Structures are given as C-alpha cells and as structure tokens.
C-alpha cells in the first residue's frame, strides 16, 4: 500500500526546499512531492505530519555497534533500534569490532545482521590496516565489493605516516574515503581527559589539543600529496577547525565531522570523576565549543555524527583512569543538535544538511534527499517537543550517557526506512 505523509514542513537541503509539501511513497521509494492537498489520500495509508518537520532520513556517519565480539555492550539490532528511536534511518559502523572488520566476510556478516534487524540501514566501514594494527593495508577492493563504504582505523589511529600515505593512495584506487581519527598516540601518552585547568585540578593526565591538531595537519598534508579522499572524524578543538578551514579555503576537497558532545559539554563535565564524560577525543573548553559551533555554522565542519560508543558498567563503573573512552549518543544526538537551531547557530535546513544530506554525499550513498526516485528514508521531527533524557528508556544496551536528566527540546517522532515505519513515538 502506498503511504502519504501529509501536512508537514518538508526540509530538504539537497533541493533547497523548506515548504509545506505532501509526500507519496510507493514500493520503498519517494514517488511524488507536491504542495499540500494535491495528492489524493484515497486508498492510501495517511500519516499526518501537521506541525512537524519532514526531513530526509538522518544518517549518523560514525557509530560503534560492537557486533561482532562485544555483544554485551550493543548488537547491530539494539544499535539499529537506538538509531531509529533517535531519528536515524542509517548509521555508518566503525570497524573496531572483535574481530576487526578488515575482510569482506566480516563486512557481509554485519550487513546480514543489519538486514535481519530490518530497522536502520547499516553501512560498514572497513579497516585501513589489517587488524587495525597499522602495519599492512587491508583488502580495500574486496571490502568495497562486500559493501564497505569507507575505511578507517578509528580507535587505533594510524601512527605511521607512510602507511597513511599509502592508504590514501590505495583507497583512491577504489574511490573510497578514509575517515581519520586524528590523534598522536605518543603525545596523548597516558592522557585520560583534556589537558587544561580541570585536568590540573583533578590530577588526571591530560591530552593536549595538539595531540589532535598535529594529526589533522599531517593527514591534510597527506591528502594534498596523494589526492586521496580524507574525512576527519570527531573534530574537538578550535585549532583543528582552523586548520580544516584554511585547507578548504585553499581548495582542498576534504570533509570533517564533529559530535554533539563537542558542542554541548566542556571538560568541566569530568568534575567529580564522571566516567561517562570520559571520551576520546576528550571534552574540551568553552572556547573550543564556540569554535566548533562556528565551524558548523560556516560549513568548515560538514557533518554531525555522534560517535555512539556503548560500554557496560564493567568498563565504566571503575576508577577514572581505568575506564573506557566513549559515550552513547544515538538517542540524544538530534535533541542536542536542535539546540543549535533554537539558539540561532544553524538554520533548520543547515542542521538537516549536516545530519543527512552531507553524510550521504560524503560517502556517496543513496538517501539524504527527498527527491522523487530516492529511497523512502524519512525522519519526522517535532522540533519543539520538550522531553527529559532518561537512559532507562533507551533502546541501546548501554547506559554510558553524560546527558541523563537533561531537558531537551525537539526529537524524532517517526523514522521511516525504505517506506516502512520502523519507529513511531509520540502522537504522530
């Protein structure tokens, strides 16, 4: 049966559209996008989106789903459930599973599990190096053929500059982007939080901003050298924003993302030794937060991706230095990001671009637009719905969220993937 979404404000940055439109879906695709009332509702399932925003399905291009290997933290099914509940109809899964996704067989396994779950689309990222050990290149051609959409050694940054050079070159052969987790491990040393006033007071070893920035600089230089496609993950510092801004101004085709926690929290969240605020890169200062917002506003940062990193109490209910890095974000990302719209940092259309259109474009994926002929991946959003973060209601298996109890304004009311309603909440 065809599906008609009626009466909503359609925001589709891809076609520069922000108008009331009705949307007709047939056989998993968008077949018509017309001014209100022009598509007859008879014989169709009608969804009223009155007073709501109808956006291309949100895509989070940086998540950790933990399967295979750490299913006690998250599975592809629970992660996909968390995604659609947070308004994401597609997620891009980093390869640092156990084993690492460095071969076609594991890529296929991830896709099979995602298909079985039938919720969000899951796009696997293959490893830059075998086992993410930073020694030898993995099989990029086979990974791509199996369904990998990018390459990354996220969590195990590529230490060796020559390997990074070769990776950018070899990935170019197969037209795959490299997503770089920029961190100089030697400079990070034993650091567990941002190096600044708070780390000094808490006696916790610091991670200087330079540990990120020197690698952003290195990888940008290597992208220039090789012509490879570079995407910089989870930008957290003012310095990184500035380095990327200059590179783009110089005409280099690179892209970058940041995460909601880098524009919502500072290193003060660590006070009291809260391990849910332990994340890598670490929460930075108010000046960095301001620079991240400015970078999102002027387009230096192309995308918002939450770096959803589930951990159980085994990894988090321990001494701060012993705790794992990472926090979960799929179910708070949209609410935190909409604050940028409410605060006038971004327009709604700019936000949707950074959470849907741009990620799809960076990775060359379908979706990210509501143009007729596109897959019917749609997120219906109430930007003004106020709610309170309650981790006990999360679909994720894990609870490592530093936003517990926060009041947020705006959330997804419905997620539609391939024309199927995969999640509906509220009064839609």
């Amino acid at each position: 049966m065809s599906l008609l979404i009626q009466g909503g404000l359609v925001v589709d940055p891809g076609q520069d559209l922000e108008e009331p439109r009705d949307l007709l879906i047939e056989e998993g695709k968008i077949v018509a996008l017309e001014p209100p009332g022009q598509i007859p509702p008879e014989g169709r399932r009608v969804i009223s989106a009155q007073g709501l925003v109808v956006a291309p399905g949100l895509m989070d291009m940086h998540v950790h789903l933990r399967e295979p290997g750490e299913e006690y933290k998250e599975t592809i099914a629970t992660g996909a459930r968390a995604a659609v509940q947070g308004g994401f109809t597609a997620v891009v899964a980093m390869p640092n599973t156990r084993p690492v996704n460095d071969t076609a067989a594991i890529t296929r396994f991830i896709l099979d599990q995602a298909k079985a779950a039938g919720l969000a689309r899951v796009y696997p990222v293959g490893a830059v190096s075998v086992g993410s050990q930073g020694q030898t290149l993995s099989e990029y051609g086979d990974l791509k053929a199996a369904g990998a959409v990018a390459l990354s050694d996220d969590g195990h940054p590529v230490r060796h500059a020559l390997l990074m050079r070769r990776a950018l070159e070899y990935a170019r052969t197969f037209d795959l982007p490299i997503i770089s987790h920029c961190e100089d491990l030697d400079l990070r040393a034993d650091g567990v939080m941002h190096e600044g006033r708070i780390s000094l007071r808490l006696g916790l070893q610091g991670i200087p901003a330079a540990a990120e920035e020197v690698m952003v600089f290195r990888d940008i230089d290597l992208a220039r050298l090789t012509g490879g496609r570079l995407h910089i993950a989870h930008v957290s510092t003012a310095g990184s924003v500035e380095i990327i801004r200059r590179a783009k101004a110089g005409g280099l085709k690179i892209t970058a993302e940041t995460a909601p926690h880098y524009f919502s929290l500072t290193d003060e969240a660590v006070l009291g030794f809260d391990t849910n605020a332990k994340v890598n890169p670490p929460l930075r200062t108010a000046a960095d937060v301001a620079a991240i917002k400015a970078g999102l506003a002027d387009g230096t940062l192309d995308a918002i991706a939450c770096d959803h990193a589930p951990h159980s109490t085994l990894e988090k209910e321990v001494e701060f230095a012993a705790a794992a890095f990472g926090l979960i974000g799929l179910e708070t990302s949209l609410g935190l990001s909409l604050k940028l719209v409410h605060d006038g940092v971004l327009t709604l259309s700019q936000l949707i671009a950074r959470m849907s259109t741009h990620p799809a474009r960076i990775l060359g994926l379908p979706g990210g637009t509501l143009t007729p002929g596109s897959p019917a991946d749609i997120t219906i959003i109430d930007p003004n719905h106020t709610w309170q973060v309650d981790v006990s209601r999360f679909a994720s298996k894990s609870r490592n969220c530093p936003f517990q109890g926060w009041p947020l304004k705006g959330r997804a009311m419905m997620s539609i993937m391939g024309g199927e309603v995969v999640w509906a909440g509220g009064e839609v």
Partner: protein
Amino acid sequence: MEFRRKDLLGIEDLEAGEISLILDTAASLKEISTRPIKKVPTLRGRTVVTLFYEPSTRTRMSFEIAAKRLSADTLNLTVAASSAIKGETLEDTAHNLEAMQPDLLVIRHPASGAPHFLAKRLKCGVINAGDGLHEHPTQALLDLLTVREAKGRLDDLKVAIIGDIAHSRVARSNIHAFIKMGSRVTVAGPATMLPPYLESLGVKVTNSLDEAVAEADVIMMLRLQLERMGQMFLSTLREYSTYFGLNTRHLALAKEDVIIMHPGPLNRGVEISPEVADGPHSVILEQVTNGVAVRMAVLLLLIGGEKG
C-alpha cells in the same frame, strides 16, 4: 565549629574554618603521643581499615599509630597493583571490606579519584591517603600544622614549593591549603614538570629556584620520582640537582628563619643536600611527628562527625 563530613577526600573541598578545626584538634591531641602510655580510649570499639594500592611505609604506619593511640582497632590491607588488575574490582574489594563494618576506610590508590569513587558507594567514611596525582590531604594538613608551630600563623607567608609539581599530589594539596589559609605560593621546577595553567590555581610560577626561594618563609622540596628519568621529563640527575637541588647557598636568599620541609622519603644529594636536610632550618622530622597528630584529629572528627 563542628566537622560535618562523612569523608576527607581533598583540601580543595575544605573551607579555611574546617582546616583550622582539624589543626586545633591535632594540636590538642599531640600531647598524647608524649605520654609514657600513649593511648586514650576515645575510639575504643571503632574499626579503621587501611587499604593501600601503592607501597607506602610512613603514611600507612602513621594512620595505624594514630588509630591505635585513640584505641581504635585497625586492619591493614596492602594490595599489589598487579594482583588488583587480575583480581576483583575496587568496588568489590571495598564492599567486601565494608561488610566487616568498619567506621572508616583509609585508601591510597594510583588512580586519581579512586577515594571519591568509593565515597560515593560506601556508607562508611573514606579518607584519601593519596590518590594518583590528585590530592594527599593529610600530608597538607600535617604540613600546615608544622608551619603553624614554627611561624605562629598560616597567613601572609611566602611558601616556595619546588620540584615535580605535575606529578605531585602533595603539591596540589599544599597549594590549595596555603592559599586557603591566606599565604602566597610560588612553585618552581623545570618546565617539563610544571603543568600548563598552573597559574589558575593562584600560584606564581617560575623556572628559577633562586627566584622562588627569595625571601621565602617556607621552602618545601618535593621528592623527585626517579622513574621520571625514563619518561623524558629530565636530562640527568646531575643537572637536576645543579638547577633544582636545594643547598646552603639558597638558605641565604630566603628569610633568616626559613623552614625547610620535605614529605619524604628523601633523595639526599638530588633535590636536597644533606647539609640542608639535617641542618637547623629543617623541620622534616617534625612533619612526621605531626603526621600522627593530624591523622588522630581526622579520625576523631570524621567518626565524631558521623555520630552528629
């Protein structure tokens, strides 16, 4: 003033009035240790557990003697860090100890924040006996008591703290302590050992030992942890000692009645020359004596505070 806390986790959380109360209590308890029979029944029937995840002789012994002089029962558990890694978690260990119903748990741990972690989870009081690079509150309190005895006051003093500030919980606690009590603190050391943003703690920062000790009322030397040698913080011990070792020449730059402190154990000939360590300005052994008094005071106030 009453002391109404369950735990003593750091100096940063304390108010000046609370610090004075602890020092006054310690001063009044000090006399007990000079008696032939060094024991009062105040904490009879109470139990104090010490849980040490780092090697320590003087701090652990000091707590144990303090508890015994107040007639508390003590139980000492030293956990080798290596066995802790493969063994039970800190939380499980603590709950097991708590099941034996102690009144206070004294913990030293290599992870900053470990005592705070326990304090949140345990009903019994927790005393931080040194956590990572963070704080060592009873050390700062015994240092304050020593300075107060020598100078008659804690305000308007110039205090120099010299050495590896970056890795020193003693330095952090003392910086908070002296500033709260109204004194001025200058820190000095090689730039590798002075973390960025130190000024934000309210101290003056210099790389010159001469400048730091000039006109100082109190000079506190920190122990150089020799393992820092392999971690790119230092060139050679010889050079460290040349530029940051305290010797008799420096005493001439300080106030005439300057006192020299050191939390121990000493690296003689590295951060402090034997002439200075053993000389008339040194109060290093008074620090040890006062350690017992201060820990008696803290045990008493926390257990008393719990009742109130």
